[in-house]
């Protein structure tokens, strides 16, 4: 089952919208603009009716899998339920119909909401100040590292090195390069922690920062975090917290308590705002007091009962985007925060960890669990004994599609062979986890008994396995009229 491109549904002269007539006296366009600046050829946009358009995109939506469709244990992505009330809140005209340059007295509600969200996020992360500006996690990372760079510069220090664990998300090293640092990788030890001795050897007077996710991307808590913080701080470096896995620790510990200096959060993970098929996200950045002067501008402040945008930050790194924040996403996160309260957030983390450990226990006899420890909100595992049948993790993942699941993250982190990373999240019930575990076991049996069936999977999806090699070799990246 495939769907024609919207361009292929186009018929000359068909219209999907009618605008009011122009009600001001009109002049000829070529009187208003010079002839050589006017578009010569008509745009080749689709000409479709409203119904054609609505049906086309509705059919496309049915070829798409989201959390509302089924279980989505995509590790590192925190695919939890996105409450509907948060969508309703963000769609209120009182929020959507605001121009960013409106006078402050006409947007007191928007500013209050941002101010409160800054505070709540600072509270939960144990940081002193928060900026809502970054548009996504990786954008938050860049903001954070530029803050560190500016801070070090203000102290007259030139440190070039940023250390990332070998288990780190790809954005960490990419961000460090973008911020102008040299990247050094530190290896993990046999328990899945950062190798403290290797770290000690790497940290020196040239170290600007260590970027760390805790729990890390293996789903394990970095047990030596206190020692790690000490090593980095003693050498004059700073500790950067990648908040991708914050869903495991809310109300239990915080980056601030662990000794981190700079933090980014992913509102589209921990704080339940939807991922939108790839975005928009939001990646607020928090810092300890010493780094506050370097936050991007403006911050939202309260002056008595009046909320304001505050620009007087002479040491600020500047701006990371236009205007102030992914405001609509912030509205959703705020809604989620007050719906949970601190009690609810703590319970969220406890149940995220409970669900992950339960699912891990259910699968332990059937899949290899490389680290025999309590996991946090996610865990890694890999198949054993399937190599002789030629069945790979990719095949298992594709077969899960036939069973109606979105597969876990595969082939990440890079340090575990044929890895699967499963994150069930707290919003899934026990039956879903039990059924999923049973079906994984069934698929593993199929891989032994009928490996060809698994290798040819998926069988029941709108399209079968796609030829990614040809896509990259002969790129077709836009529609062109046949």
């Amino acid at each position, binding site marked *: 089952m495939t769907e024609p491109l919207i361009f292929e549904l186009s018929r000359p002269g068909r219209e999907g919208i009618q605008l009011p007539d122009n009600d001001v006296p009109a002049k000829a366009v070529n009187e208003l603009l010079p002839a050589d600046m006017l578009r010569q050829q008509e745009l080749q946009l689709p000409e479709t009716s409203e119904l054609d358009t609505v049906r086309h995109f509705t059919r496309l939506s049915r070829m798409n899998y989201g959390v509302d469709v089924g279980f989505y244990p995509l590790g590192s992505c925190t695919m939890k339920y996105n409450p509907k009330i948060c969508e309703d809140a963000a769609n209120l005209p009182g929020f959507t119909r605001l121009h960013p340059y409106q006078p402050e007295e006409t947007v007191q509600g928007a500013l209050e909401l941002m101010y409160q969200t800054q505070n709540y996020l600072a509270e939960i992360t144990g940081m002193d100040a928060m900026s809502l500006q970054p548009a996504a996690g990786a954008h938050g990372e860049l903001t954070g590292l530029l803050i560190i760079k500016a801070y070090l510069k203000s102290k007259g220090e030139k440190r070039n090195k940023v250390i990332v664990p070998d288990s780190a998300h790809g954005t960490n090293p990419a961000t460090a*390069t973008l911020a102008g640092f040299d990247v050094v990788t530190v290896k993990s030890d046999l328990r899945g922690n950062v190798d403290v001795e290797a770290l000690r050897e790497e940290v020196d007077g040239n170290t600007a920062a260590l970027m760390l996710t805790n729990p890390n991307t293996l789903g394990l808590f970095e047990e030596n975090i206190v020692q790690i913080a000490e090593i980095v701080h003693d050498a004059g470096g700073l500790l950067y917290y990648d908040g991708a896995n914050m869903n495991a620790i809310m109300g239990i510990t915080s980056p601030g308590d662990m000794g981190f200096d700079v933090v980014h959060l992913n509102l589209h993970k921990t704080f339940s705002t939807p991922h939108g098929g790839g975005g928009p996200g939001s990646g607020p950045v928090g810092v300890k007091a010493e780094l506050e002067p370097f936050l991007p501008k403006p911050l939202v402040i309260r002056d008595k009962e009046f909320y304001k945008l505050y620009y007087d930050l002479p040491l600020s790194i500047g701006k990371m985007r236009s205007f102030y924040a992914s405001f609509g996403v912030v509205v959703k996160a705020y809604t989620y925060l007050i719906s949970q309260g601190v009690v609810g957030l703590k319970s969220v983390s406890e149940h995220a960890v409970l669900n992950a450990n339960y699912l891990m226990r259910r699968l332990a006899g059937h899949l290899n669990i490389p680290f025999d420890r309590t996991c946090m909100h996610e865990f890694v595992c890999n198949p054993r004994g399937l190599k002789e049948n030629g069945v790979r993790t990719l095949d298992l993942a594709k077969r899960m599609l036939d069973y109606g699941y979105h597969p876990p993250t595969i082939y990440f982190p890079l340090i575990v062979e044929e890895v699967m990373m499963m994150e069930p999240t707290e919003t899934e019930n026990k039956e879903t986890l039990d059924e999923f575990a049973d079906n994984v076991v069934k698929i593993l049996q199929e891989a032994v008994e009928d490996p060809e069936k698994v290798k040819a999977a998926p069988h029941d999806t709108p399209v079968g396995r796609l030829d990614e090699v040809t896509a990259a070799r002969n790129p077709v*990246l836009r529609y062109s009229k046949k």
Partner: protein
Amino acid sequence: MKFIPHTSEEQRQMMNELEIKKLEELFQELPDEIKINKDINIPGPLSELEVARQLKKIAEKNKTVDQLTSFLGAGAYDHYIPSAVQHILSRSEFYTAYTPYQPEVSQGVLQSIFEFQSMICELTGMDVANASMYDGASATAEAALMASAATRRTKVLISKAVHPEYRQVLLTYAGGPELQVEEIDYNQGCTEIEKLKQSMDKDVAAVIIQQPNFFGSLEDLKAFADVVHEHKALMVTCADPVSLALITSPGSCGADIVVGEGQGLGIPMAYGGPHLGYMACTKKLMRRMPGRIVGETVDNKGQRGFVLTLQAREQHIRREKATSNICSNQALCALAATVHLSLMGPKGLRQVAEQCLQKAHYTYEQIINLLGYQPVWSVPFFKEFVVKVPQSPAEINNRLLEKGIIGGLDLGRYYPELEDHMLFCVTETRTREEIDRLVALLGGDVK
């Protein structure tokens, strides 16, 4: 509100399975000294009804552009959004999905992005577009980094007539790889080509011009492109996609990279975000683009399908050698733009652009006809224009606000030399009645 489904019986069974008595036992590996031992100040939990009341109360503290009549533009535009756009975005198969890592169950997002890329290419006159960027400002900064990597040069020239916030964002991004950024002055409302010529040298990687520029004026892109290419640098244009229904595409004027803000294509202003950055380039630069790109291919049955492609550029493969660190983008906003452009079609989008043009010019003529309000430049403009005003813009805007109108932008805030100048924006959503009311309230007799 509780989104945790566990009954106490189920929780007990699960804990039994794990041989634990309390949930705290799951956190035994955490050192005691880092455990939180103070109160955290976040209100709640609240029920859904209480949450709804609270949000409504906060939203009502704002005055919207429906309650007020707005003549603000400057990077966020009040264009009409057809009703069907939000209805499609509310399909939760789209909005509750992650990045399409499993293409077999993500054809909806992938195909819509392919359609988006096609439409952006068509509007900009470029060969290739990516799946989106955060916003116009960060897309502009990323274009500069991309040009620097492609040319192996370290200087970026940006017109002072580019949105001031975009220039600030470029400066912030440039601080990473320590690129040198120089501004090119404007004259008579447009970037001054003589100044550009003086600043060109062999270190210049990119020249960034906005079209229409921050003042709403149209730039002679072709003339700039010739100068830029003479020095083997890349021409980056930051363009308002709505204007491109009416004016020549940057591609046909010689642009190498085109970026911009797509908020005007069906995305609410929403106090500044989330909006939609876009980026397009020539085929030659394709493999240097940041971000996700969707390509067409076939499945194992020969059916057409779509996948994320050219991923060897990206952070999850190349890590510290990636072209950018971008991972999440603005996929749902790109979907909004795709639905919007499908509904508009070539005729609708052109009508929108023409009405902006007509209404902005009508407003301009009326305002400069008022005593004390003066034209400043005589350059072609699209939906925004600058006038010199007889009192301080703050005074004028306060007076207008009392009557329910949000006036133009006070340009002195960004350009000290333009104190007492205002930037007005008039889109197709403003009626003649609203415009006439603005003009009447601006005060001053007719000349």
